[in-house]
């Protein structure tokens, strides 16, 4: 430790630089975790990647480029399914999140025994990956769009509740108190002071979650929850060109949804 004497006569101790300690911890963790990753050089075949790219993005066998693009057009149906699933799931999940967000915000009900348990449940819901939710939904209602909607709704519900209660907690409460002081009850005060403040954020989050859900549709279809992912899974063994076509179409749609989402959200703010 280095000590310095400043001109006023005081001694100043230079603080220990924590960065070396942090780097050491990261290094140790990296070494430990690397033990779990076995690298077998025989498995690494970079050449295969190039072959795969060729298979994905050129027509297979005696199919022509015409077939390749014609197949893209037939993807309208699964893509529509994906978008509808995402939309319905997002809206249902987000609306269901509203009462729970209010219950778990610290500044509205001010009751510890209410908001801690609610938050705990929400946190548990949020830890379950969308894929697992879809698997469970498939178990309950079978494969198809319905299980996709349920999975997306649950997933959206978890995220929206968290985002929304954080917004509610940062809301300016003076107008709420002002309304209460004039004799309005909590519901009226909430309606006229909190809702106008959180409504734009709610819509903006909803669009953001919709965007996320469209992106996760690839994985949902993989376990049978409908949409474009199903097309990818059905063709992954024999028709790489169709998988490639589906990937291209999916990327275009995701990009489109993202531009739309960014545009609307920038208008809202």
């Amino acid at each position, binding site marked *: 430790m280095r000590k310095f004497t400043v001109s006023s006569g005081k001694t100043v101790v230079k603080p220990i630089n924590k960065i070396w300690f942090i780097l050491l911890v990261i290094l140790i*963790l990296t070494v430990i975790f690397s033990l779990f*990753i076995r690298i*077998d050089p025989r498995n*690494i075949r970079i050449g295969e990647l190039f072959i795969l790219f060729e298979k994905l993005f050129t027509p297979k066998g005696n199919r022509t480029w015409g077939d390749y693009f014609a197949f893209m057009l037939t993807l309208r149906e699964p893509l529509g399914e994906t978008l509808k699933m995402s939309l319905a799931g997002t809206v249902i999940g987000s609306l269901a999140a509203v009462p729970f967000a209010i219950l778990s915000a610290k500044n509205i009900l001010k009751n510890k025994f209410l908001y801690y348990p609610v938050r705990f449940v929400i946190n548990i819901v949020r830890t379950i990956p969308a894929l697992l939710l879809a*698997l469970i939904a498939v178990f309950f209602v079978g494969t198809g769009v319905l299980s996709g909607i349920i999975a997306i709704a649950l997933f959206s519900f978890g995220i929206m509740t968290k985002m929304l209660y954080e917004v509610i907690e940062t809301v300016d409460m003076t107008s709420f108190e002002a309304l209460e002081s004039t004799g309005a009850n909590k519901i009226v005060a909430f309606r006229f002071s909190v809702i106008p403040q959180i409504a734009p954020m709610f819509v903006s989050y909803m669009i953001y979650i919709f965007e996320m859900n469209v992106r996760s549709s690839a994985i949902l279809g993989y376990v049978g929850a409908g949409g474009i992912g199903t097309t990818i899974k059905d063709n992954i063994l024999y028709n790489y060109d169709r998988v490639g076509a589906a990937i291209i179409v999916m990327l275009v749609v995701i990009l489109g949804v*993202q531009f739309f989402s960014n545009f609307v959200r920038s208008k809202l703010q």
Partner: protein
Amino acid sequence: MNNLEKVLKKQPKKWIINLIFVLAVLAAIVYSFAGSHINWTRFNTVGISLRIMIEGLGSINTDFLLGTGIYQFEEGVVYLALETLAIAFLGTLIGAVLAVPFGFLAAKNIVGKKVARIGEAVLVLIRVFPEIILALILVKGFGVNALTGVLTIGLHSIGMIGKLFSETIENMDRSSIEALESEGADTLTKIRYGILPQLMSDLSSITLYRLDINVRSATVLGIIGAGGLGASLILAAENWNWDILGTIMISIIVMVLLVDAVSGYLRNKLL
């Protein structure tokens, strides 16, 4: 009519916009359901399914949890969960390191507007490319093992971490660099004392946040053979082995909550 009423009359007719919005959302929902072929009778068996699920979840398979008995240790949930954590951690580390140059290339105040736009476009493309598709491709080149998972998460993370890095770099305060310049400091000193201290806490916070997300996706990527819990998960799900599924589910919940808590604690300390 007094003054107050006049002001009230003058306020924009917001309810029209609100009504249009609500109607649009309603129409979208109706359209989503009407256009999809949904078989509502499937809800009839929910009760039975629920009972099977709860019975299965109630009986945790300890052999499978610890990797004892008929299971090898490396098939046990404890080992697989650690492997999942390893994939997430190493993937995030690779992503964060690779994201630094991308972050600088997408920052307007470092490389200028034109280059930054290209950098940004690259980051958007990386971000929108679904992780599972990336894993499907990489699994061909790197085999069915955890390495594929690490690389998938590493490459995919560049997109988001790089974007947030570039925003941090753009918001950097230049005054400390100018102060160092006025003292006659050289470039290295300027980077070491003017730039790094400002960026370090934000960069670590962003990386920790991404670690949270990556732990979740590492559990999922196994379904196409990228290591971790996913492979056992999809196998158990296909046979509806609820005792095994339940064990995996609980371990995922515990793992994610733990990582969330640790990274949240560290992020709070950084602020």
